[in-house]
């Protein structure tokens, strides 16, 4: 026990004297959690609080164009700059190059006329199908409705464009439905639809009730902090490979290892000491980042991190930390130089994060990657944390994520043991 304690003390001393390593281990997860949460949070807010800058050019002089303009404004996603109808497409594009707006909507000149004509056509067809007499006096223009033009800046990512398109389609649908209903009403009653009825028919959309699936029964909507803080904490835990893997390699190369081998103590004591010391580091990393999420994020304008079941978080953090430490030691045992350890360690962590669902949600992973994904320890760490942070689960609810993680950790430990024996280190 005295040997183990002396070794832990030695490891702690070396660790605390490596200022750069400490900064890397503690500042990196904080920066990652803050920056990525802030970015995702601002993205979320951008789509929900009128912050997508848009140029709107309505070349139509009729009622439908105005209604579409109103519906787009009402969508609540855009900060609209209206330009005069005489602005050419090129002029509008020119303004977008200077990033005055990332999106521009051009309503064509005969939009009202065409929409009205198409609505009348639909109404006549519908009434005939019902065996009713339609007003044949209605003249229809058989030409199709010209599309609404949506110009977008190339910086706008596809997911953004799809969200914006969805909002536009919804606005367009409102206008089209209104015209069809008005036409039907006119054909049936030979008079215009009263405003009150128009409002009742159009405004009676069925609401969507969004409820997050939660094991605790809570209806709190998971925010960007709940998503990002645990995810990037896991990433940072595994990134101790840079410090720990390097420490194992340094010990092997700097000659102290030769001395250790000639002393009457098994090198496994050193391996155990490193595991305990760095497990403490990973748990501290998690505690620091979670604390910042709880107490500092709100003062930075970021959503507060809600800490779930404490027993669950403690156990998951310990198991994730142990897995990260085991992986780092394995890399250190097999690497021949510090450069190898750093390079292989960093690249493999990024790859495991990518296939593990940290960069792309696991449900969106291609089928061919589903098996590979399950081999990544980061996947199980993430699933366990999400079970707690997003679904409000307890320890028993994430047990099935912890078990595979323990299995992977044991395999890593066995590989390390094999490496130590093969290299005549124990």
């Amino acid at each position, binding site marked *: 026990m005295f040997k183990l304690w002396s070794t832990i003390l030695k490891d702690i001393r070396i660790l605390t004297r490596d200022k750069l390593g400490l900064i890397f281990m503690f500042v990196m997860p904080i920066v990652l959690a803050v920056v990525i949460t802030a970015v995702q949070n601002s993205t979320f807010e951008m789509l929900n609080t009128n912050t997508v800058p848009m140029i709107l050019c309505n070349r139509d002089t009729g009622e439908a164009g105005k209604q579409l303009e109103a519906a787009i404004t009402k969508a609540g996603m855009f900060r609209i700059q209206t330009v005069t109808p005489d602005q050419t497409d090129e002029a509008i594009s020119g303004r977008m190059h200077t990033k005055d707006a990332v999106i521009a909507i051009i309503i064509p000149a005969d939009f009202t006329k065409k929409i009205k004509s198409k609505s009348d056509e639909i109404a006549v067809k519908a009434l005939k199908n019902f065996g009713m007499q339609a007003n044949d006096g209605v003249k229809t223009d058989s030409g199709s409705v010209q599309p609404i033009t949506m110009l977008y800046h190339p910086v706008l990512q596809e997911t953004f464009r799809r969200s914006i398109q969805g909002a536009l389609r919804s606005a367009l649908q409102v206008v089209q439905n209104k015209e069809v209903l008005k036409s039907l009403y006119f054909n049936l009653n030979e008079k215009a639809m009263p405003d009150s009825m128009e409002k009742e028919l159009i405004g009676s959309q069925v609401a969507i009730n969004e409820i997050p699936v939660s094991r605790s029964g809570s209806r709190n909507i998971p925010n960007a902090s709940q998503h990002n803080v645990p995810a990037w904490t896991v990433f940072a835990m595994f990134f101790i490979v840079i410090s720990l893997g390097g420490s194992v390699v340094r010990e092997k190369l*700097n000659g*102290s290892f030769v001395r250790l081998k000639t002393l*009457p103590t098994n090198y496994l004591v050193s391996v155990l000491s490193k595991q305990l010391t760095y497990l403490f580091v990973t748990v501290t990393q998690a505690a620091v980042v979670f604390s910042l999420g709880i107490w500092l994020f709100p003062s930075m304008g970021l959503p507060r991190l809600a800490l779930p079941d404490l027993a669950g978080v403690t156990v998951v953090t310990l198991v994730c930390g142990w897995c990260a430490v085991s992986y780092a030691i394995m890399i250190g045992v097999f690497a021949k130089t510090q450069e190898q350890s750093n390079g292989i360690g960093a690249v493999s962590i990024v790859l495991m994060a990518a296939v593990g669902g940290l960069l792309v949600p696991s449900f969106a992973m291609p089928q061919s990657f589903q098996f590979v994904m399950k081999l990544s320890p980061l996947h199980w760490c993430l699933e366990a944390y999400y079970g707690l942070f997003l679904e409000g689960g307890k320890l028993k609810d994430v047990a099935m994520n912890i078990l595979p993680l323990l299995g992977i950790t044991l395999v890593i430990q066995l590989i390390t043991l094999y490496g130590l024996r093969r290299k005549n280190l124990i």
Partner: protein
Amino acid sequence: MNQAAVRISSLGFTYPRQQAACFSNLNLEVTQGERFGLFGPNGAGKTTLMNCMTGLLNYQQGSVQLLGHEIAHHKKSINRLFGFVPQDFSFYQELSPAENLAFFGAWAGLGKSEIKTKTDELLEILGLTDVRKKKVQEFSGGMKRRVNLAIGVIHNPQILFLDEPTVGVDVHSRHAIIHYLKQLNENGTTLIYTSHQLSEAEDLCNKVALIDDGRIIAHDTLEQLMFDHKEDGLEGLFINLTGKSFRDS
């Protein structure tokens, strides 16, 4: 009659993935209490032989016994019997001399109070008391050599293996190290020493062996060897027995 500190019989060793054997049927005996010097040109097999004696390399044939214990069979328990001072600085540069001694003392099987006593004693003898709390990485080469030696002897080993313990140090540090090694030997520690500093070896060693191409080509007291080969120094004896050609392998 003194017991053999080291007895090597019919030793055979070949490095993995190499065809030529480093040693085949090598025999050597070092008696307890000797100040034994092992010399030879570069690539002769000095370090490999020392690594076989300290258990760092697993030999394929023969036997290496330290104080009657076969090293291949009792590797870890036998490690209490000897100390090793490698040529490289074999300690943690981020730690102070006292912290290094505390750690390696624990690994050598000493208790807390023993470590403290031995640390104070060694730092005093080797002139490191004033810098006991300073990080070793800030030390000069000579000071680092003295720390390297202190760690090797903290557990009072009966046999001390020294692989070029004074390489690259100034006169004062060399004098302190050699003086201390003689003191240790007077107190019963067998020294097994290798170096290219032949004048230093003449001063320190009372028995020498010359190794070349994996074979012991001479083994006796220095005086007897010089008499036999009509040389008046170790350097002349060395050139006489190993030739003048370069050994850069």
